[in-house]
């Protein structure tokens, strides 16, 4: 079983990295890009096991370590 975790800065938090990427894209002629948010993608190999349990554990991993919920949101996929 593999988990894919996506961590992004909350909407209410300014993303200086995203801003810089947006400016670069705009200066390259991609003016249609209105906003860029840069995040992290984390892949976890969980071996085999119960999916419901795995889901609870992933959530706990995200809340404790993978994301800082003061500034970041997370979502995950399990398959």
């Amino acid at each position, binding site marked *: 079983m593999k988990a894919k975790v996506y961590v992004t*800065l909350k909407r*209410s*938090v*300014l993303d*200086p*990295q995203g801003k*810089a990427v947006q400016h670069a894209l705009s200066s390259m002629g991609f003016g249609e890009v209105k906003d860029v948010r840069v995040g992290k993608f984390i892949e976890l190999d969980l071996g085999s096991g119960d999916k419901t349990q795995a889901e609870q554990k992933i959530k706990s991993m995200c809340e404790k*370590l*993978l994301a*800082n919920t*003061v*500034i970041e949101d997370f979502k995950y996929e399990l398959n």
Partner: protein
Amino acid sequence: MKFGVVVFPGSNCDHDCYHVLKHVLKKDAEFVWHKDRDVSKFDCIVLPGGFSYGDYLRTGAIARFSPVMEAVKKHAEKGKLVIGICNGFQVLLEAGLLPGAMLRNESLKFICKFVTLRVESTDSPFTKKAKKGGLLRIPVAHGEGNYFADAGTLAELNKNSQVLVRYVDNPNGSLENIAGICNKERNVFGLMPHPERASEEELGSTDGRRIFESIIEHCGTR
């Protein structure tokens, strides 16, 4: 009194802190390895600057799970002093010993220069020897010092005078020019500037000493 300077893998200001405490201020100081689980003999724990665990994932995110941090939490709960400098501040935020979080500097640049801080409150063990509204010239050196907290937290910090120092000219985009905050109980302090780099004449400023001398006075008169 005795200082304990924590050494994480990737700490790089540990020796600077030790040097200032031991050789400049002539106080008892010892290094504490990140795997140690007992810090009970120390009066003040210093979490130094650097790049603990390579700043992987987020600054301070991995360090907060080191064995020593459990002991540091207990130390803080007893009301003993903890000061986190730069990366140490980031570790305290990740550990939840101080509220808020750090974002990348607004400019995206690593900033390494002298800044001027205004002392906002002298009602703390870390600033009691400074003057309220007084200015301190102390250098910063960080890529992620852009302090963030939600509106509720910010209001709480202001209400309780937990912001001990603010930047006169904001170098990194920090909310409300925040350079350093303490907890509600006022025994845990985190700041981005490096007082240990401004504690000797030959380094251009001795203003950083004010912070260490405050700690020493506080512990001496307890």
